[in-house]
C-alpha cells in the first residue's frame, strides 16, 4: 500500500474532525469578540475583549471553575476507589454472581437525565424522598439535599452512574489476572494488602488509566444532571462551567458572552487534556 492511499484512507476522519473542531471554534472565537445578543439584534460591532471581561467578572465565574474541578475530582476518586473495592469484593466464586454483576453495572446504562430525576424525586426530596423517610424513622431531621448540599448531591448522583462503569471494567480485568500467580502469592503467605498492592493494583494499572481518561472527558462537561436537578443553584453553588455557559447562551440570549465562556471552557479542557494525553500517551506506547 503506498503513501497516497494511506493518506486517502485517513483523510475522511482527519478532515471531518478538523472541520468539526475548527469551524465552530473559529466561529466561537469570532462571536466572542462581537456584540451579539439574540434579543437585541440591532446592536452589533466589534467589542474586543469586553465579552471576556463580562464573563470573567461574572460573580459566578470562579465558583463555576472551582465547582467543575471539585466535581471532576470527587467523582473520579469515588468511582475508582469504590470501583476497586467492589471489584475485589466480587472477584470470588459465589452463587448467582451473574445476577449481582448485572445489578452492579445497571446504573451505567441509565440515562443521565433519568438518573438525576430518580435521585431528585424519589431519593432526595425532603418530604417524600426515601432519605427523608429514613431520617424520620431514626429520628433525625430530614435534609433538603439539593438545596442544602447541592454540589455534594450532584457528586453522589454522578458517582452512582459512573462507579458501575469502573466496577464493570475492573471486575472484567481481574478475571484475566493469572490464577496461578494469585495462588503462588497465597502459598507464599502474602497477606491481603500485600497481594492487593503487589499483584492486583499493577494488573489494573491500564484499566484504571482508561477509566480515569474516559470519565474525565465526560465529567468536564456534565450538564444533564445539573440541568434536571438543581438548575445550577441555589445561587451558583452547583453551577459548573458548562452550565454557566448554557445559562448565558440559552437563558441569557447573549451569544457573545456565552462564546467568550466557551473559549474559557476550551482553555480549561486543554489544561486538563495535557495531563490526560500524557497519561494515555504512555498507554499507547505500551
Amino acid at each position, binding site marked *: 500500500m503506498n503513501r497516497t492511499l494511506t493518506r486517502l484512507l485517513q483523510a*475522511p476522519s*482527519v478532515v471531518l474532525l478538523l472541520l468539526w473542531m475548527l469551524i465552530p471554534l473559529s466561529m466561537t472565537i469570532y462571536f466572542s469578540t462581537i456584540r451579539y445578543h439574540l434579543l437585541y439584534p440591532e446592536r452589533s460591532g466589534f467589542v474586543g475583549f469586553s465579552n471576556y471581561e463580562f464573563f470573567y467578572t461574572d460573580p459566578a465565574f470562579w465558583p463555576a471553575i472551582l465547582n467543575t474541578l471539585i466535581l471532576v475530582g470527587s467523582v473520579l476518586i469515588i468511582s475508582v476507589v469504590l470501583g476497586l473495592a*467492589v471489584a475485589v469484593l466480587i472477584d470470588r466464586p459465589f452463587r448467582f454472581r451473574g445476577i449481582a454483576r448485572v*445489578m452492579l453495572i445497571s446504573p451505567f446504562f441509565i440515562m443521565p437525565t433519568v438518573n438525576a430525576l430518580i435521585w431528585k424525586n424519589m431519593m432526595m426530596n425532603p418530604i417524600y424522598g*426515601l432519605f427523608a*423517610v429514613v431520617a424520620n424513622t431514626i429520628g433525625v431531621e430530614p435534609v433538603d439535599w439539593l438545596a442544602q448540599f447541592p454540589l455534594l448531591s450532584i457528586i453522589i448522583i454522578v458517582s452512582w452512574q459512573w462507579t458501575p462503569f469502573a466496577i*464493570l471494567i475492573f471486575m472484567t480485568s481481574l478475571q484475566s489476572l493469572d490464577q496461578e500467580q494469585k495462588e503462588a502469592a497465597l502459598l507464599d503467605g502474602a497477606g491481603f494488602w500485600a497481594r492487593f498492592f503487589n499483584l492486583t493494583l499493577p494488573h489494573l494499572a491500564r484499566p484504571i488509566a482508561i477509566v480515569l481518561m474516559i470519565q474525565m472527558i465526560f465529567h468536564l462537561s456534565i450538564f444533564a444532571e445539573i440541568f434536571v436537578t438543581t438548575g445550577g443553584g441555589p445561587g451558583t453553588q452547583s453551577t459548573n462551567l458548562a452550565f454557566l455557559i448554557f445559562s448565558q447562551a440559552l437563558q441569557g440570549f447573549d451569544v457573545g458572552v456565552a462564546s467568550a*465562556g466557551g473559549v474559557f471552557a*476550551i482553555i480549561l479542557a486543554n489544561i486538563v487534556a495535557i495531563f490526560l494525553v500524557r497519561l494515555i500517551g504512555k498507554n499507547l506506547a505500551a
Partner: protein
Amino acid sequence: MQMTDKQRERLINHIAVAAAWIVAALFFFPIFWMVLTSFKTELEAIAVPPTLFFEPTLENYTLIEERTDYFRFALNSVITSFGGTLLAMLIAIPSAYAMAFNPTRRTKDILLWMLSTKMLPAVGVLMPIYLICQRLGLLDTHIALIFIFAMINLPIIMMILFNYFREIPKEIIEASRMDGATTFGEITQIVMPLAWGGIASTALLSIVLLWNEAFWSINLTSSDAGTLVVLVASFTAPEGLFWAKLSAVSTLACAPIVVFGWLTQKQLVQGLTFGAVK
C-alpha cells in the same frame, strides 16, 4: 475455640459475599424503586411512609401511550444512535486500518489530537452548531443529530479500532498482498473478520453512549427528531409531582438500552478497555 486457617478463610469469604450482595442491592435499588413506582397510582407514589406492597396498576403506561408518541421517540433513539455509530464506523475503519498497518511518525500524534477534540466542551461550540443547523434548516432532524453523534464518538472509536487492528499479525496482511488482494479486499476479507470482536464491541459502546446522550439531543431536537432523552426531559418541568408517570416514562426510555447492556456486557468491556482485556 481456635479457628483453623481454613475456617477463617471461609468465614471471610462468607462476609465478602454478603457484603457484595448488600452493595449490589444498594446500587440497584434506585432502579428497582423507579420500576416499582411506575406501577403505583400517583397517590401511592408519594405516600409517606412509602408502600412496598400495593395493587399494581398499568394506568401510567396506558396514559403515556395515549398522550405521547412513545414509539416515535424510541424509533428516533434507534435511528440516531445506530445511525451515528454506523457513520462513525464507516469513517473510522479505513482510517484506523491505514494507521495501524502503515503507521508514520505522525500517526500517534494524529490519534492523540483526535482524542483531544473529544475534550472540547460541547457547550463551548453549541452556539455555532445551533446557528449552522438553523441556517441549513437542520434543526430537529435526524441528519443533523446523526452527523453530530458520529463526530462526538469518532475519536474514541478511532482509538479503540486502532488498538485492535494493531494486534493483527502483519504477516497475514503481507501474505494477502502477495496474493494480490486489493486494499478494499484486505479490509473486508481479512481485517474485519479478524477484528470482528473489537469492531462489534466498539459499536456497542458507541450505541450505549449515544442512546443516553443528552446535551445535543435536548438542545437541537424536539418533537420531530427528539430522542427518548428528550421525551423524558419533557416530562420533568411542568408535571410537578407526577412521579408515577415520570417513572413509567423513564422505565420505558431506559429499558431497551439496559437490557441491551446486560446482554452485551462482556463484549462491551473489551471495547472500553481498548482491547487490553481478553
